[in-house]
C-alpha cells in the first residue's frame, strides 16, 4: 500500500489513538505513584518507577493480547487493531523503563559488568523457587525489543509477511516469560492476593478469548468436499452484498465476494499482515482488508495502481444458486471474469 517508507503515516485517527493511549498510560502512572506516596511514603523513587512501569507493561500486554481474538469474535473491535502496533511499541517502552531501572538498581555500580551480574548473581537455575527470575524478564524484554524494532512496514516487507508474522507471534513466548518472571519473582516475596488474582483472571481471560476465537476459526477451516476439483461453497443469498463467504480448500482459505450483481474469488490472506480479507468489505470497488485497509481489485486480485500487491484468484461456477470454487488457484493477479448472477 505504501510507495515509500515514512516513520509513521500520520492520519487523524492515528493521532486520536495515540493521544488516548498516552493519556491512559499517564493516568495509570500518576494514579499508581500518587496512591503509593500517600499510603506508602517511605517507598524509594527507584522502586516506585520499577513497579509503576512494570505493572503498566503487564496491563498493556494483556490488552494487546486480547485485541486479536476480540476482533475475530466481534468485528467492532477492529478499531483497536488498526493501530495495535503503536500500543505494542508503547508497551515495550514501559517494559524497557522497568527493565533498565531494575538493571541499574540491582546490578550497576558493582564489581562486575551489569549483564554478567544479571546472569550470574543468582545461579539457582535448577531450582523452581529460587530460580533467577530477572533473567526471564530480560529475555521477554529482548523479544519485545525485536518486535518493537521490526514493527514498521519496512521490516514487514523486507522480512516477508510470513517471517514477520512468525517473529511477532513470539509475543506469546514473551507473555509466558513475563508471567513466569512475576510468579517466580515478586510473588515469591510479596504475595498480595490482589496482584495474583488479577493476573490469574487476566491469564484466564486471555486464554478463554483465544480458545473461543480458535473454535470459531476451526469451524470455518473444515475443508469443503470436491467434485472433479470443484468445491461447493454456499448459495448466492448466503453472501451479503459487498461482503464475502470464506471456505477452506485444501487448507487454504478462499474468499468469495458478492458485489454489484457479480461474484469474484481471491485468496483470503492479505499480503500486508496476513489479514482475513474475507472479513473485509468491497469499498470503492475494491476488497478492503479489515485490519489495515489494504485494497485489491476483486476480479484480478491486484492492488489498485500505483500499488503492486497481488493475490491468487480462483475460478467460479454457478449451478442454480449454488456457488462452486475450483481448487486450483490462478496465478497472482490473473484476471478472472466475474460471475454474473440473477
Amino acid at each position, binding site marked *: 500500500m505504501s510507495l515509500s517508507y515514512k516513520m509513521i503515516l500520520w492520519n487523524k485517527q492515528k493521532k486520536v489513538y495515540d493521544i488516548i493511549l498516552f493519556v491512559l498510560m499517564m493516568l495509570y502512572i500518576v494514579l499508581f505513584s500518587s496512591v503509593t506516596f500517600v499510603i506508602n511514603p517511605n517507598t524509594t523513587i527507584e522502586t516506585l518507577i520499577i513497579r509503576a512501569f512494570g505493572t503498566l507493561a503487564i496491563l498493556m500486554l494483556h490488552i494487546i493480547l486480547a485485541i486479536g481474538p476480540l476482533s475475530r469474535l466481534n468485528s467492532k473491535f477492529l*478499531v483497536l487493531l488498526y493501530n495495535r502496533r503503536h500500543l505494542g511499541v508503547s508497551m515495550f517502552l514501559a517494559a524497557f523503563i522497568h527493565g533498565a531501572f531494575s538493571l541499574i538498581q540491582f546490578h550497576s555500580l558493582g564489581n562486575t559488568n551489569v549483564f554478567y551480574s544479571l546472569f550470574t548473581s543468582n545461579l539457582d537455575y535448577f531450582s523452581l523457587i529460587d530460580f533467577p527470575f530477572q533473567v526471564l524478564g530480560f529475555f521477554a524484554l529482548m523479544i519485545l525489543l525485536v518486535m518493537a524494532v521490526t514493527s514498521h512496514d519496512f521490516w514487514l516487507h523486507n522480512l516477508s509477511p510470513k517471517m514477520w508474522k512468525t517473529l511477532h507471534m513470539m509475543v506469546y513466548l514473551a507473555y509466558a516469560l513475563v508471567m513466569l518472571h512475576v510468579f517466580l519473582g515478586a510473588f515469591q516475596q510479596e504475595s498480595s492476593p490482589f496482584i495474583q488474582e488479577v493476573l490469574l483472571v487476566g491469564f484466564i481471560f486471555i486464554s478463554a478469548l483465544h480458545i473461543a476465537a480458535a473454535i470459531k476459526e476451526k469451524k470455518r477451516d473444515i475443508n469443503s468436499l470436491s467434485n472433479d476439483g470443484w468445491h461447493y461453497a454456499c448459495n448466492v443469498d448466503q453472501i451479503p452484498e459487498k461482503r464475502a463467504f470464506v471456505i477452506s480448500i485444501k487448507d487454504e482459505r478462499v474468499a468469495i465476494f458478492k458485489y454489484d450483481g457479480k461474484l469474484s474469488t481471491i485468496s483470503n490472506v492479505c499480503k500486508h499482515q496476513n489479514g482475513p480479507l474475507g472479513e473485509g468489505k468491497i469499498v470503492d470497488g475494491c476488497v478492503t482488508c479489515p485490519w489495515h485497509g489494504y485494497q485489491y481489485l476483486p476480479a484480478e486480485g491486484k492492488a489498485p495502481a500505483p500499488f503492486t500487491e497481488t493475490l491468487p484468484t480462483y475460478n467460479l461456477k454457478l449451478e442454480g444458486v449454488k456457488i462452486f470454487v475450483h481448487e486450483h488457484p490462478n496465478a497472482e493477479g490473473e484476471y478472472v471474469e466475474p460471475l454474473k448472477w440473477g
Partner: protein
Amino acid sequence: MKKDEFYIGYRKSNSKSINQFIKRVTLLLGVIVIFIAFLWAFSQPKAPESKFELGSVIELQGTLMMAPYPMLRINHNEQVGKDILLLGFGKFGANKPLGQLSEQSLDGKQLKIKGTLIYYDGKTLFQIDPDIANSIKVLQHKGYKRISEDMGSITLEGEIIDPKCYFGVMKPGHGKIHRSCGVRCIAGGIPPVLLVSNSDGTQDYMLIVDENNEPVNQQVLEFVGKPVQIKGSLAQLGDWLILKTTPEKNIETLNKKSKVY
C-alpha cells in the same frame, strides 16, 4: 454499530456509531486503568522507615576499627559510643576507598570522614564519599580498643542480607527480589549480616565472620537472600553482634519461607 458498518483506519472520519463504540471502549479502558492502578498500588507491602540520606554529605570524626569489617567508633564519653559500619560507594565495602588512601594500616587512627548516613532499627552505617582524596583526613592515633565479649555457641535461623540496602538504600533490601543485588553488594566487600526475626517482632543483626574473625564475603554468596540456618558462636563487639562460623560447613539453606518476607 450497524451490522454492515466497516472501519477503515486511514479515513478522515467514522460513522457516528463507530465513534460511539470508540468512546465506550475508551471509557471502559479508563475504568480498568483506574481500578488496576488503585488495586495494585494499595497491594504493595509497606516500605520500612529505613533511611539513606542521599544528597546530604556530612562529616564524622571517630576512631577507625578495621577488623572484622571497617567501622568508625564515635565515643560520646568513656563508656558510651557508637560503632558506625563504613561502606564504599555503590556496591563496594569500605576497604576499597580506605585502601586507596594509604598503603599503611589506618587501624586505630582517628579520622574525619565525609559521607552519607544510612540508618534503621538502631543501626547506623556510613557511605564514604567517593571523592576519597578530599573526604578522609587522618588525624592522630587514638589508642582505643574494643573488647569482644563471647556469648557462646548458638544455632540461628534467618536471612543473610547486605546491610547497605537493607538499612536504607533499597526497599525492599532483602528477599528474592533483592537477592542478586545483595550478592553483588556482598561480593563487592559489603559485610554480610544475618538478619534474625524474633517472635516478638523485633530483629537482631549479626556480622558474619569466620572462626579467625576474618571476612567471609565470598563464602556466603550462595546463601544470600534465602532462609538459612547457621551454627556458630556469638560475640558482642561494640554495638554489633558478631557471628563466627565456618560457612562451608555450618550454613544450610532451609526449605521454608523466610520470616522476613
